[in-house]
C-alpha cells in the first residue's frame, strides 16, 4: 500500500504534464496553423466588425427577417456565453403552452404582413434547440417564412428563395446529418438586398 504512493504521485504529475499541458497545447498550436478560422470560432468579419459566428445562431424576431428557432438560454436567447436547452419534458403544461404561443406569434406576424399561410408550422421553428445556439432552421422552416419575409422586407420573393437555396447546407456527401439553412448568413445576405429606406 505504502509502495503505491510514490508511483501514484510521480505518474499523476507526469501524465498531468503530458496529457494536461503538452497534448492540448500541441493540438492548439497545430490547429492555429492549419485551421485558424475554425479553431477560433468560425467568426464572420466585415472589416473590423465581428458580425457573429457562422456556427452560432442569433435571435431574430423582426418580421422582415427569417426567424431563428426559439432559444432557452438566459437572460436572453442565443447567449453563447451560457449555452442551455429548455429541458422541458414532453408533457410539461408550461412547455405545451409556450409552443402554442410560438405558433400564434408566427400567425400574428403573417397577418400583420398581409400574408395568408395555412400550412402547419414546421416543428423546429417552434421548439427550442438543445444548445440554445442552433445556427440553423430546416429548409421546411425557411420555406414557411419566405412569403412573409418577402412581403415585409420588400425583396422580391424569387430573390429571397434564391438566397435560401444558397444558404441551405445539404447532408454531408448526401448522407450524414440533415439539410439545414444557416439563419445568420441568410439574414446578413438579405440585408444587402433590401431596398434603401
Amino acid at each position, binding site marked *: 500500500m505504502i509502495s503505491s504512493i510514490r*508511483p501514484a504521485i510521480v505518474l499523476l504529475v507526469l501524465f498531468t504534464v503530458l496529457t494536461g499541458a503538452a497534448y492540448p497545447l500541441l493540438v492548439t498550436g497545430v490547429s492555429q496553423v492549419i485551421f485558424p478560422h475554425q479553431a477560433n470560432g468560425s467568426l464572420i468579419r466585415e472589416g473590423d466588425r465581428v458580425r457573429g*459566428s457562422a456556427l452560432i445562431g442569433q435571435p431574430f424576431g423582426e418580421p422582415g427577417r427569417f426567424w431563428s428557432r426559439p432559444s432557452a438560454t438566459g437572460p436572453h436567447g442565443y447567449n453563447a456565453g*451560457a449555452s442551455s436547452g429548455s429541458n422541458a419534458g414532453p408533457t410539461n403544461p408550461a412547455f405545451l403552452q409556450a409552443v402554442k404561443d410560438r405558433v400564434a406569434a408566427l400567425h400574428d406576424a403573417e397577418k400583420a404582413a398581409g400574408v395568408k399561410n395555412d400550412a402547419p408550422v414546421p*416543428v*423546429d421553428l417552434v421548439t427550442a434547440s438543445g444548445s440554445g445556439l442552433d445556427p440553423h432552421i430546416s429548409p421546411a422552416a425557411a420555406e414557411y417564412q419566405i412569403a412573409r419575409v418577402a412581403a415585409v422586407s420588400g425583396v422580391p420573393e424569387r430573390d429571397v428563395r434564391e438566397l435560401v437555396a444558397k444558404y441551405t447546407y445539404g447532408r*454531408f456527401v448526401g448522407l450524414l*446529418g440533415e439539410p439545414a439553412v444557416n439563419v445568420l448568413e441568410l439574414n446578413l445576405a438579405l440585408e444587402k438586398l433590401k431596398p434603401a429606406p
Partner: protein
Amino acid sequence: MTWQSYVQLALYLGVLIGLSFPLGKFMAHVFEGKVRWFAPLERAFYWLAGTREDRDMNWKQYAWAAMMFNLLGLLAVFVLQMFQQQLPVNTENLPPPSWHLALNTAISFATNTNWQAYGGETTLSYLVQMLGLTVQNFVSAATGIAVVIALIRGFSRRESAGIGNFWVDLTRGTLYVLLPLSFVLALALVSQGVVQTMSPYQKAEFIEAQTIETPVKNDSGEPVLDADGKPVTEKTIVKEQTIAVGPAASQVAIKQLGTNGGGFFNVNSAHPLENATPLSNFMQVLAILIISGGLCIAFGELVKDRRQGIAMLAAMTIVLVALLIPCVAAEQSGNPAFAGVDQVASANQSGGNMEGKETRFGIANSALWATATTAASNGSVNSMHDSYTPLGGMVPMWLMQLGEIIFGGVGSGLYGMLVFALVAVFIAGLMVGRTPEYLGKKIQAHEMKMASLAILIPAGAVLVGTALACVSDWGLAGRANPGAHGFSEILYAYSSAGNNNGSAFAGLTVNTLGYDLSLGAAMLLGRFGPMLAVLAIAGSLAAKKTVTPGPGTLPTHTPLFVGLLIGTVLLVGALTFVPALALGPIVEHLLMVKP
C-alpha cells in the same frame, strides 16, 4: 423516417464493427508489450515511478495501486478548482465553485463518470479544464482498460499469483491507445469547426439588439417591490453576443474516446462549437463506442480464442440495435399534444420531437447518440434527454441501468459483461448440474459472490439513491418538470451516477449539497465496488489451473451462449428496474397518449 436515416444508422454500425477488429488487434499487441514506439519515454516513466515493467502485482496490490492513483487524481481536481482564481489561465476570472460542487466534479472525473453539475463555460477556467479534467479523462479511461486487461490475464494465466503491473498497463494504455487516437481526432474535429484556442471569449454584434428585464435589487440584495407588491424591473439593452471559446477540441476528443463524456461547454456536444457538423458528429459518436468494441476483439486475441471476443461483441451489438430502434421510432413519432405543427419527416425536415435537438443532427443522429452514449458509460449528449418522449427517454435510462455493459465504459464495459458471462455459465451449470467453467477456469462460490457484488452494488446505489431523493426536500426541490417526468429526472440522475455514465435529464437542479454528495457517493460506489470485485475475481482465477474442455463443457462462443448471455443481462436489468421505470416513463407515456 427518410431513407437517409436508415442508411446513416447502418453505416454507423458497419464502420464501428469494421474498425473494432484492427483496433482490437492493435490493443492486444500494446498490452502484450509488443508496441514500443515510445520505449525510452516509457522506461523513463517507470524509472521515475520506481517500478519495472516485469514486476508483477497480486490482485490486492493491483487494486491498491488503482485506488490510490484515482483518489490522488480526485484530490488534484478538487484542489485545482478551489484555487482556480489564484491560478493562471483563468481568462474570464471565474470564482471557485462551492466545495460540494468541486468535490462532486472531482469524483465525477476520477470515476470516469463525468457528471456535469457544473456548466463548463460559466464555472471552470481553461487551466482547470486542461490540467484537471482532461488529465482525468485520460487516466480514468486508462484505469478502466488496465483493470479489464488484468481480468483477462486472470483467464489466460495458470497457477499464477500476479495479474500484471498497474503502472505499466496505465502507461501503455495512455501512451499507445488514448493519446494518439485523441490527437488525430482532435485535429479532425477542429477542421469541422470545433474550437481550440487559448484566447478569451469573443464578442460579436447582435443584428437585432436584445432587451432584457432584470429585477431591481436594493443595497441588501432584496428585490425591490412596487406599490402592487410586484418586483420592479429595469430594462437593459444587450447589443453584443458573448461567444465562449477555449481549448475544446483536445478535451472533446478524449471525452469521447475515453467514454468520459464531460463537456467543455454546458450543453456538451449539442454546442455548435463542440460538435459543429454532421461529420464531426459521426466521428464523435463513433469514438464513443470504438475502444469498447475493440477491447472485445483484444480480449479474444489475448485469451487465444478469437471467437470468444466476437461472441462478446455480438451480444453487445444485438442489444444496442434492439434498443436503438425503439428510441429512434419514439422520437420520430413526435409530440401528440402539438396542434397546427408539422412533425412529419420529409426531404425538407427531419420532423419528430425536435425540442432539445439540433437541426443539423435531426432525429436519427440524436437518437443514435442518445443510445450510444448510454450504452457506453460515456454520457456526452448532442440533444437534451430531458425533452425526449417518455419512451424515447426510457431507452437511455434502461441502458444505463443494465450496468453500462453494452459496449460500456472503456474497460469497465467489458469487465462488466465478463461478470455477466460468469453469471450466465453459472445459471447454465445449475441447469445441467455441472460445475460451471469459463475459458477453462472453474467458476466457484468465491467468483459468484464477487460477480453478484459487482452487479448489485451499482443497482443498489441507483435504487437507494433515488428513494432517498424522493423522500427528501432537497431531492424534490430539484425537479424542473411536474408529475411523472419529475420522478424520471431523479431516477435518471442516480442511474447515471451509480453506473458512471454522466448524462442527465438536465432540468434537474443538482448543484445543491444533497445532490452533490449523494450522487458523489453513488459514483464512488458504482466505480470502485465493481472494480474491486472484478480484481478479486482476476486474482482468484489467475491462481487456478486450467481444465481442458470436456464433452459436458458449455461452449461460450456459440449463438446459443450469446443468447444466454443477453437473456441474463436483460433478465437482471428488467427484474431490478421495471418497477421504478413503471412509475416514471411508462406512466408518463400513458398520460401523454391518452390525456
